[in-house]
């Protein structure tokens, strides 16, 4: 980098720009080839991780998994039909922090080609019908707002009406602050629908992936009849930083990770990604037949 300083006035400027571009491009490619595991901090070859269902081959940390990959992983080929696609978010509070919610939504929707942070649908898991909601953490941290709440509520009502089990794959930082009180109210709306589903004796399974926190954890996630954690997923009500600042103590090793929650009786089991379809099928067949 030191060779081409801006002070070197005898260098034609367009060449300099090209070189900087090249460096950036090279850096980008380098980054694209390798990723750092956020759990064991090893540098791993990206292709190797991708081939391994986005699981770190060194420590088995489960990286966030794309919605499309999740659908392909869980549902029998060609059986998944998306539901409630047309529901779109609205900036009804005209919320503005460093950026307006309206702009934030526009940019996120364009870059991810998705309306909001959850995809709902129906499909077959080894032949068994199931309704599913899959959170997209990329979309504003998988936050729970009016759209996510409405879609999942409809899904649960559909499950209650048709007698089809409901499975939710969670990945969320919590409620969507930009929707103020109505984001909080989604917790109650969804929980009411879960109550309805359960009263109809329809099974409700949740799979908690990294991270599942706040308002999603304290409604959708922890109400599962059966709760499955992905390995090393962070699961909790308050985030670790808030807890640390409040109590001014170090947090125990492995705190709020799936393994810790199993130990404390908060979730049923940890299932690695490569076994999840088999496990869900087994559970559904045990419950329904």
């Amino acid at each position, binding site marked *: 980098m030191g060779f081409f300083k801006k002070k070197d006035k005898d260098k034609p400027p367009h060449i300099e720009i090209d070189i900087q571009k090249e460096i950036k491009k090279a850096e980008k490619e380098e980054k694209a080839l390798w990723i750092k595991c956020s759990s064991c901090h090893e540098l791993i070859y990206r292709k190797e991780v991708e081939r391994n269902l986005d699981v770190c081959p060194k420590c088995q940390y489960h990286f966030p998994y794309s919605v499309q990959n999740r659908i392909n992983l869980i549902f029998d080929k060609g059986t998944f039909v998306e539901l409630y696609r047309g529901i779109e978010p609205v900036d009804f*509070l005209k919320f503005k922090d460093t950026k307006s919610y309206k702009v934030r939504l526009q940019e996120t929707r364009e870059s991810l080609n998705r309306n909001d942070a959850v995809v709902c649908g129906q499909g077959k898991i080894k032949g068994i019908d199931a309704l599913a909601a899959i959170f997209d953490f990329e979309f504003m941290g998988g936050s729970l707002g009016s759209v996510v709440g409405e879609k999942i509520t409809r899904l649960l009502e559909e499950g209650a009406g048709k007698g089809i089990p409901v499975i939710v794959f969670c990945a969320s930082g919590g409620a969507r602050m930009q929707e103020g009180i*109505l984001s909080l109210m989604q917790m*109650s709306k969804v929980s009411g629908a879960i*109550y*309805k589903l359960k009263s109809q004796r329809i099974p409700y399974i949740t799979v908690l992936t990294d991270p599942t926190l706040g308002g999603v954890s*304290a409604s959708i996630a922890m109400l599962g009849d059966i709760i499955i954690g992905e390995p090393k997923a962070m699961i909790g*009500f308050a985030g670790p930083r808030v807890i640390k600042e409040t109590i001014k103590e170090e947090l125990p090793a492995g705190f709020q990770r799936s393994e810790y929650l199993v130990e*404390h009786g908060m979730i049923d089991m940890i299932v690695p990604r490569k076994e999840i379809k088999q496990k869900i099928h087994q559970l559904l067949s045990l419950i329904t037949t």
Partner: protein
Amino acid sequence: MRYYLDFEKRLEPIERRIEEIKKFHNVTEGHYAKELSGLEKKVSKIEKEIYGDLSNWQRSQLSRHLNRPHTLDYVSHLFTDFTELHGDRRFKDDPAIAGGFARFEGISVAVLGHQKGKDVREMAARNFGMANPEGYRKAVRLMDLADRWQKPIITFIDTPGAFPGIGAEERGQAETIASAICFMFSLSVPVIAVVIGEGGSGGALAVGVGNRVLMLENATYSVISPEGCAAILWRDGAKGPLAADALKPTAPDLYELNVVDEVVPEPFGGAHRNWQETFDHLSQVLSKHLKELLSIPGDGLRAQRYDKFRRMGIFQEQR
């Protein structure tokens, strides 16, 4: 102890002087009577200036005012025969939530809510109204008894939020809040939730699924505190006033969004300025809603509660 917020500070010396005069002098006539009436005029003039047009940030501060009546104050002034019940039968008694059975206008009801403290010692003992899982489990236990015995439930909301701690997480803070919310949808008795002070996020909602949700004029109810929101979105906790404007957590805002059914007026300046007037206002409103709900059968109450929360949320739909 009388406590003054920063924006109320101008009142402090005058009101201290008023107290002093009333305490030590004959105020029915003469010099002190004259001084007193002058001071009182001054107070009402300043009141108009400082309380006349409250910002969201000022309301957020008022909602946490240390001199505001808290849950047990409402219980002792609006109810009779209060018998407090303790414990979640699982782990311990959480003093951040208090509750039991009492009579409201002669009707036997379950009453419960977050309890902050009025002085430093009580605040610490009650963890500033921030409940642990056992607090919500106690609330569910009391609501379950009320349902079985067919008594209406009145809850008071006044909490910064559920406590963020190691033990709280280990004992399932998220699960207990979720279960409490979900459980409230099963209730076949009238449920009235009243936001009396600070309605902090999931910890507030855990006792907030009512057939009616009432809110005091200067109470706030929000997904996150303005300070917390500012720390995350502005990366600067001091931007609380901006966050309070953006979050729209005040009673009029929530009425507008159909989250609360009625705003209960407070005395000018806030509930802390005149407890009795606050009690009278709430008592009237509570009485009206309870009477309406008592005529609805259990299934109807459950359905009404479901529909009320089912409608919450704003989105658009392309077909």
